[in-house]
């Protein structure tokens, strides 16, 4: 089990791929042409990246004052996470290279950290080639909008593979 925790630590300490990392800067503005559900007017976002909060990031709206979200890479919280981006969303993002898809889950931070959840059903996908982003709704009934990160990590570190 100790080794698995070590594996996870190594995983979160890994740098982002260079072509994505190059654009992880607060001066880079992402365009969400349709906003996101419930905040349709929020069309421009920036990402705050900080070593202190890594692996979490902060996605901040430039249009709606005060609007921002904590995010995390969903592949970190659920080892067997898998997404099939619907053709419509892929076309609207202009996504041609899967390697340029930056996938994030919005995190609902609860007072009790053990209850903190991530939205795995509707990830944010950003095409790092053209900086277009949107919230994509996956058609996988097994994925939850409130996936418990704590339980996920327990499973992660308890894997007997």
């Amino acid at each position: 089990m100790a080794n698995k925790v070590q594996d996870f630590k190594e995983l979160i300490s890994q740098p982002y791929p260079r072509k994505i990392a190059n654009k992880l800067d607060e001066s880079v503005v992402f365009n969400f042409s349709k906003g996101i559900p419930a905040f349709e007017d929020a069309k421009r976002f920036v990402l705050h990246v900080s070593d202190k909060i890594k692996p979490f990031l902060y996605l901040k709206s430039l249009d709606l004052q005060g609007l921002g979200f904590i995010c995390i890479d969903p592949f970190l919280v659920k080892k067997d996470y898998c997404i099939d981006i619907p053709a419509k969303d892929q076309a609207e993002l202009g996504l041609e290279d899967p390697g340029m898809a930056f996938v994030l889950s919005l995190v609902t931070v609860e007072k009790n950290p053990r209850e903190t959840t991530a939205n795995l059903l509707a990830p944010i996908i950003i095409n790092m080639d053209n900086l277009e982003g949107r919230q994509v709704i996956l058609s996988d009934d097994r994925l939850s909008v409130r996936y418990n990160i704590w339980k996920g990590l327990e499973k992660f570190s308890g894997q007997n593979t």
Partner: protein
Amino acid sequence: MLILTRKSDESIIIGNNIKVKVLKVQGNQVHLGIDAPRDFSIFREEIFEQIRAENANAVQNDIEPAKLAELENCLTGLKNLLFSEDEEQEPETGKKD
């Protein structure tokens, strides 16, 4: 808004390439078969509502530099909790040797 009546096995056509067929009516449940091009998104309405609600839940209000530090503490706390709890179990497995 169009309102019409259909029986089992009857369909409606929307535009020229979307077909919605009533497969079965059972009490207050209706089974629908939907035939649409791949580039149309089709969801149960409550899924969409669930996502809207969760987005609203997830909002972290205006994070000023001072508040960001607070949040950093919170998330660092979360990370520490997650890892330290896991690590506490290490000695147990070690002692078995």
